């Protein structure tokens, strides 16, 4: 048994036979030609064929891996048609009186060299693209077909590195993993394996030998390990893990793309919570219908000074664009209590959970709040944004927020900056907000109940204090009654109410929440599908 370490580009387990992918080593010989015009003509014809192959590949890739990933073949076409690329090849043919194959290989090497000299991970990843284009042209000229994976057994494909066209030409149903000894996280093997959702390793520390071919291998994408010739105990261990994953995947497949609707036909907004733009991939992968809670404080927590309006705009805009028209609810700065930031220079408090936090900081330090509001309103032009304010306890706070919103909107308009028309809602996470939710509902577009704080304030139990665990009941009837009251008051005023706290993802309560009339549940991405499963057999009306 041998164990190797690589960089994982997608999590998961794969067990199967190893298949070594050997490129057709294009032995490009330098041959002198006398008729350079004829040689240029050969090259031009190959170029045309390559372009037509690439448009076929593009179509295939769009179907298999989506338009965004297929775009790489558009880039390949552009390279083949690029004047610099063409001129270089023709000039080598002419001045050195050599064959087209050699001229292409030289040119591809030179351009690849340029990318690898840029000292940039992304551009280094493009070296493979240039070489791929060169090899495509050469194999057309030499009349050879590219190597491909075929057969009827699922295999772990092992290679030094794989070009995008090589991965697309493979029979995907047979490939359960890629293991490469080179490559970067930006390489197309990495991107495609993520899109295909198969565990893969790159930059793995072993040397490919012929003996590996056909041996049993295990790829552990969770810890970045590649095991060759595993012993029985290891095989058993991984088979169990694999089965667990398969069950999860099965659930995913059966629930993905399904509308989240109750037995009696009520559509539920099932959204995901995110605390970081890196979580976005998980939101999409788990098929959430939107983002129900975007914790904007991470934008502040990862800086050592206040993030500027432009910096915030870039983050919000990217999220909105990635979500492409799906709702994105961004919660304004919720700092204080357990989330602290040095540069805010907050005074020490005896009881931070009940201290200067969230909207209280924003309203007492309007310059900080205004920057965020400006960034949010500007971002609202790029997607379906809603703004949500945390820790509300009174009508007065909402009135003050409205004044600031109006001020920001006026300013932006007078500067000629385009803004959208975002919905605005509030978190219901204090008992005070629950009790006056009838009044608050008239002033806002939606409610989202933050059950973590609401439970702690209602039960007067500090959740960080483990000694109080025996007194703590996350399903306390007081909290459940409050949720019911909030939902009723929301509906009375014609707005929707959801839950974005931890309780939202508690599948033992989903039926009860839906029966109460809850319209939205926002949960961590991994819980979207399990919650959807519950909703699908729940009833909104008793």
């Amino acid at each position, binding site marked *: 048994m041998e164990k190797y370490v690589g960089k994982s580009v997608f999590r998961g387990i794969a067990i199967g036979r190893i298949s070594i992918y050997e490129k057709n080593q294009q032995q490009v010989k330098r041959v002198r030609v006398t008729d350079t015009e004829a040689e240029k003509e050969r090259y031009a014809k190959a170029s045309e064929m390559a372009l037509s192959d690439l448009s076929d590949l593009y179509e295939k890739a769009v179907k298999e891996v989506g338009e*965004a990933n297929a*775009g*790489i073949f*558009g*880039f390949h*076409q*552009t*390279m083949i048609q*690029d*004047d*610099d*690329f063409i001129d270089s090849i023709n000039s080598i043919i002419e001045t050195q009186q050599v064959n087209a194959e050699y001229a292409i290989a030289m040119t591809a090497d030179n*351009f690849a060299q*340029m*990318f690898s000299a*840029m000292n*940039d991970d*992304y*551009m280094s990843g*493009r070296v493979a*693209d240039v070489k791929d284009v060169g090899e495509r042209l050469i194999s057309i000229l030499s009349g050879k077909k590219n190597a491909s994976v075929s057969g009827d057994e699922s295999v772990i494909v092992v290679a030094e590195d794989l070009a995008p066209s090589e991965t697309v030409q493979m029979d995907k149903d047979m490939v359960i993993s890629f293991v490469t000894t080179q490559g970067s996280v930006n390489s197309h093997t990495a991107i495609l394996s993520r899109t295909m959702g198969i565990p893969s390793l790159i930059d793995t520390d072993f040397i490919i030998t012929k003996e590996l071919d056909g041996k049993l291998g295990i790829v552990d994408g969770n810890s970045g390990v590649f095991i060759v010739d595993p012993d029985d105990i290891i095989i058993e261990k991984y088979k169990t893990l694999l089965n667990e994953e398969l069950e999860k995947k099965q659930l995913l497949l059966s629930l993905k793309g399904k509308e989240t609707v109750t037995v009696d036909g009520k559509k539920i907004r099932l959204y995901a919570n995110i605390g970081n733009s890196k979580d976005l991939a998980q939101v999409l992968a788990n098929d959430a219908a939107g983002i129900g809670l975007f914790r904007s404080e991470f934008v502040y927590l990862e800086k050592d000074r206040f993030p500027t309006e432009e910096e915030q705009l*870039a983050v919000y*805009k*990217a999220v909105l664009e990635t979500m492409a028209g799906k709702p994105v609810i961004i919660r304004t700065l919720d700092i204080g209590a357990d989330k602290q930031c040095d540069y805010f220079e907050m005074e020490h408090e005896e009881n931070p959970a009940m201290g200067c936090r969230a909207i209280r900081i924003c309203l007492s330090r309007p310059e900080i709040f205004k920057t965020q509001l400006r960034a949010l309103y500007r971002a609202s032009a790029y997607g379906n944004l809603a703004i949500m304010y945390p820790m509300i306890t009174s009508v007065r706070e909402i009135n003050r927020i409205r004044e600031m919103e109006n001020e920001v909107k006026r300013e932006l308009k007078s500067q000629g900056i385009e803004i959208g028309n975002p919905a605005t809602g509030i978190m219901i996470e204090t008992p005070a907000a629950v009790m006056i939710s009838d009044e608050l509902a008239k002033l806002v577009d939606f409610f989202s109940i933050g059950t973590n704080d609401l439970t702690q304030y209602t039960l007067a139990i500090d959740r960080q204090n483990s000694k109080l665990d025996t007194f703590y009941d996350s399903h306390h009837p007081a909290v459940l009654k409050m949720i019911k009251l909030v939902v009723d008051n929301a509906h009375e005023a014609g707005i929707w109410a959801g839950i974005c706290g931890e309780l939202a993802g508690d599948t033992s309560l989903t039926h009860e929440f839906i029966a109460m009339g809850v319209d939205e549940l926002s949960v961590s991405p991994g819980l979207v599908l399990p919650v959807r499963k519950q909703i699908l057999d729940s009833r909104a009306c008793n």
Partner: protein
Amino acid sequence: MKEFNHVIADPEGVHARPATELVKLAKNYQSSISIIFDGRVGDCKRVFTIMALGIKCGNTVTFAFDGDDEDAAMEAFTDFVATKL
């Protein structure tokens, strides 16, 4: 000769896809169209010259247009970069 500045908003900078789209768009016009960054000039009709500039998110670049249809080209580029770059 016309020009305008643009701050790159795409988090990945001018990577393969936008570079490809820039070339496609530029080839619709007779005018010469340049992308200028950090004192270096790329030709918007030549993909390698664009990518060689190594433009990242947050960089300010200048697009310059020179030729008979420079007005139309500038308008098309302004629209393109506002939403795609």
